[in-house]
């Protein structure tokens, strides 16, 4: 393990250690947040982070903040938030314990200690990482490599069928085309309205819609006649000229003239 991070000038001033009992003089600048200050203070206790005195740590941190205030230095808000929290933690640790309170002050202290351990672990890991034999600083790759070249060459492929089909496609697309609409056997809506309104007058009983279709109609003409007659029946019902009845979906549809 690295004893200390050599790249960072020590912010703690050991010469001032003995001046005031239990407190340390700290340079105020150059800290990476309150946890950073706490870690520096904790490491200064020169014990394993698991054995640090949280109370002592709290005292030192509060002294650090007070000193900054005495020097009228502006401290970022998070340093003050940490100070307030530590002051609370200190009183909770000293005062008789309230068993109702969770988490317990001991738990909070433990959490703080765990956070410090984790930050310390990463700080030491970072120091060990940057101290390795690094490319371009300690070890060097070849100064003037020839380089590897991968030349991609396309081999284009197409089939004769693709070629002539493409030409057919273009010709079909661009050649004038005569459009012929085939005559289709249909019953128009107008025709159906006329038929249904004529036939309905002659019926007294409920009769199915199929009985309104022309005799002998079959195939697509019958389908067309059925569809048109149905729409015609809806239209006539809307006009109040006939009534519709159907027991359930897809059941036979009955028509009768309005009374």
């Amino acid at each position, binding site marked *: 393990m690295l004893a200390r991070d050599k790249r960072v000038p020590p912010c703690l001033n050991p010469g001032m250690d003995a001046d005031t009992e239990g407190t340390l003089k700290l340079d105020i600048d150059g800290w990476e947040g309150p946890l950073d200050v706490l870690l520096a203070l904790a490491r200064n206790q020169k014990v394993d982070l698991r054995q640090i005195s949280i109370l002592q740590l709290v005292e030192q941190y509060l002294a650090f903040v007070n000193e900054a205030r005495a020097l009228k230095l502006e401290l970022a808000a998070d340093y003050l938030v940490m100070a307030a929290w530590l002051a609370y933690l200190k009183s909770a640790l000293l005062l008789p314990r309230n068993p109702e309170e969770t988490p317990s002050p001991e738990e909070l202290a433990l959490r703080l200690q765990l956070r410090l351990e984790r930050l310390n672990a990463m700080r030491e890991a970072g120091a060990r990482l940057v101290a390795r034999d690094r490319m371009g600083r300690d070890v060097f790759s070849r100064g003037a490599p020839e380089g590897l070249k991968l030349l*991609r060459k396309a081999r284009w492929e197409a089939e004769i069928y693709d070629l002539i089909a493409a030409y057919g496609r273009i010709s079909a697309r661009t050649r004038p085309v005569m459009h012929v609409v085939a005559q289709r056997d249909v019953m128009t809506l107008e025709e159906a309205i006329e038929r249904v309104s004529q036939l309905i007058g002659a019926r007294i009983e409920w009769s199915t819609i199929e009985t309104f279709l022309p005799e002998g109609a079959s195939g697509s003409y019958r389908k067309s006649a059925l569809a048109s007659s149905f729409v015609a029946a809806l239209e006539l019902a809307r006009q109040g000229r006939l009534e519709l009845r159907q027991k359930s979906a897809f059941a036979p549809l009955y028509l009768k003239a309005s009374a």
Partner: protein
Amino acid sequence: MIAPDDLSRAVEAVIFASESPVSVEEIRAHVGAEADVAGALEVLQGLYAGRGIELVCRGNRWHFQTAADLAHLLRRDREERRKLSRAGIETLAIIAYHEPVTRAEIEAIRGVQISKGTIDVLMEAGWVRPAGRREVPGRPLTYATTAGFLTHFGLESRRDLPGIEDLRAAGLLDPVDLAMEHLMIDESESTEVETVEEDD
């Protein structure tokens, strides 16, 4: 002083890491003014003889290079089979049926603009060649097919290409697909743009 073996290691590293060939003086600046650099270089040349890397001296400057007989390994051609895009095959078909034909004529027949890359691809494939200029204002370049085109498509001559009546008989002019075709033109055009970007 560096011991001989350490010296040859040091000289080796200095030449390796240098961005340009180095003279004996430059090597000395790194490994020590009194070092027997010449001796170390001799040791190294022996070590590297016959290997994939050679230590060579050109104009009193030393550098490493890969052995000349292995140069072919460093440049590797890779042939990739690629299918012509729809725009490519249509353009090729128009050139084949109408040659010599200008780019503007191709566009008029296709009914869609062609991107610059499309004809480039056909030329790269060796199927299309420039075929002189048309003597009209602007003197546009015309294009025609090559012998390589006939070979690739297994044709004796361009007369072997089926005519319009043959195409109709084969159902290749079937208007049923027309609406579908129109729908797909937009699609193929956008595909074409992507292909061209890849080509670049």
